[in-house]
């Protein structure tokens, strides 16, 4: 990894209110927050590790485990739910060997279900590595994902 964690730490003043900012930047850079990174953040902001751990586990966007190379988010907002996104998420997970949202053993994929992406007019929606897939279906999404897996 060529990202310098010290550079991230120095982005914000050493105050408790910047804890979440720092954890977000670390999550974005490394795909997860390692125990070492958590310690560094705590030293810098003056927050006890227990509190930082509470924050890391409370918010949905933080992960203490590495995430996969490819990120698939399936929206489970109301509009998407009515148009069958629950089945789409289940079918996708089954096809790549996941029982529930999470990361595959080979670290190829992370599948997350998200509450609402605010793109309800495109329902059902999935986001694959940042790209919105409007009006997605199980076959379309599975095809896209299996293509990424063979790359």
């Amino acid at each position, binding site marked *: 990894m060529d990202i310098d964690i010290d550079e991230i730490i120095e982005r914000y003043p050493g*105050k*408790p*209110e*910047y*804890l*979440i*900012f720092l*954890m*977000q930047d670390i999550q974005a850079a490394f795909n997860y927050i390692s125990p070492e990174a958590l310690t560094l953040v705590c030293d810098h*902001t003056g*927050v006890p590790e227990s*509190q930082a751990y*509470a*924050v890391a586990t*409370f*918010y*949905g*966007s*933080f992960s203490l485990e590495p995430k996969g190379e490819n990120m698939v988010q399936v929206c*489970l*907002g*109301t*509009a*998407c*739910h*009515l148009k*069958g996104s629950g*089945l789409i998420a*289940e*079918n996708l997970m*089954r*096809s790549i060997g996941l029982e529930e949202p999470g990361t595959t053993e080979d670290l190829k994929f992370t599948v997350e279900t*998200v*509450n*609402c*992406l*605010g*793109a*309800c*007019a*495109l*329902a059902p*929606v999935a986001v694959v590595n940042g790209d*919105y*897939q*409007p009006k997605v*279906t*199980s*076959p379309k999404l599975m095809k896209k994902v299996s293509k990424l897996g063979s790359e």
Partner: protein
Amino acid sequence: MQATAKKTGQAKLGSLEELEQLRGELTAAVDPDQTLIVVCHGTGCVANGSPGVTEALKKALADAGEDIKVVPGIKTTGCHGFCSRGPLVIIKPAGIFYQQVKPADAEDIVAQTIQKGETVERLLYKHPQTGDTLSTTEEIPFYAGQQRVVLQNIGQIDPTDIEDALRAGAYAGAAKALTAMQPSEVVEAVTKSGLRGRGGAGFPTGVKWGLAAKHGDVEKYVLCNADEGDPGAFMDRSVMEGDPHAVVEGMIIGGYAIGANEGYVYVRAEYPLAIKHLEMALADARALGLLGENILGSGFNFDIRINRGAGAFVCGEETALMRSVEGKVGEPVPRPPYPSDKGLFGKPSVLNNVETWANVSRILERGWEWFAGLGTEKSKGTKVFALVGKVNNVGLVEVPMGIKLRNIVMDIGGGVPGSDHFKAVQTGGPSGGCLPWEDADLPVDFDSLIAAGSMMGSGGMIVMDDRDCMVDVAKYFLGFLEEESCGKCFPCRLGVPRLRETLVRFSKGEGTAEDIDDLYSLAEAIKMGSLCALGGTAPNAVLSTLRYFRDEYEAHILEHRCPAGVCKDLITYSIDPEACTGCHACFRACPQNAVSGEKKKPHTIDESLCIRCGMCMESCKFGAIQVV
């Protein structure tokens, strides 16, 4: 391209006069009769390919070269609202409305419309009922039934260009407040306007400000709740993406009114484009001296910081949001003390949502009397709704308060596909409820919706038809809330999962009529005992569906049947031999090998192998898969 003075050369504005002079110069630099191509770059249109359309239009214009009499510009804007017809392109000044535009259409648009002034017939909107071809925005019922106040600039201005926003009147309200009014007069104006919080609770905004303002000369904060987590709602997203200056301006006004020098915008991290446009708006406003020290020579200092949400629905609750801004776990705390006394960092604070702040800008710009003249007696102004689900015209609509539900769904929304009525409309997100077709003439305002067992909420409006199961919908919302409960208080932590478990049993055809009675008493306990509104309103989904759709619950429990054909344990898939062409698509898609049959002959499904994953239905192009 448009001839405008670029902002790089503009020094900080030191007074109201300098702002108005700049606005005048910017306006004069643009010819209103100039041809302008406006492309919607809202999230919906972008996902449908509008950036490709913009590029193709630019290329087509360049290729057309000297043949063009006037030099047209291309402007990219925020969401025009009519998301289901995107990508949208509007040709100004005539206002010609093109929908579902593809990059391949760019040449025809330039050759026919820009060069010859003729419309491209195939890109125009056709009225779904009358079949008439409508060429301008004003003629289209989706727009004609709306009253745009909060959304007035969205689709008109380039949200990344402060000069364009200034031309449309941005910061006029803030300038008036700061230079010509006392803070107490600003509070009074907002109070008199009758504005109520658009986040859902509908608390009078001016009253809230007054409570914080009375603390005198101590450190205070204003905050913007942009954590729009309600599934099915995207109004705030569109406002931030399409007109971020309206939010910034509203917060300047609020800061001045209560005596705060710092503002915080708490935005969901799921909204990257909103964050980007807000950051640009803040930087540009700072560069012009509209944020920072001594704004417009008024002696008032104010600046705004952005906090990104980290994925917790409960952070939309005001006390939880403030804890999150402090860098802590976003758990709500009991009130009182109210945030207007002890809020962020223990200081008096005012939190309003995005749409409320945008309304404040308009109220100060046009006067409270004007605003108080809109809407109903107790619900003033307009409301932006995200109209989604089983409705023809999906998108963002802004209507005056008090409009009938029927007008929104049938006239603006264009009705329900394949039906002449809606079965239910869900409003208020997980805290709200479902309203039935019988309530179609209900006026949409804060108090009427609550009386009907739902609520305004932030403005999600989800239309449902006969294929949507009310037990499933209630189960869905409870599942959502169970997952998002912070777990601090036990009525919510323990009660919501019990409610959901009961509904899970119902959806499997299990349960008794007594279970329904138990649901009511549990719902009461959760409502009364919960610490914040997440738990306090959690039972609404089940209570409102029970109130209006009890027969559906009974069909599940007593007849072991899901009338809408949704609940997995109560349905079976089969193939209509008439419609099946034997194309093998479902055969290949089925993960269980439950489909059998020879090619070009009707297939069948082995029910014992079927896991009801719906793959066959999704892969069938002939509508041959049936659910019973």
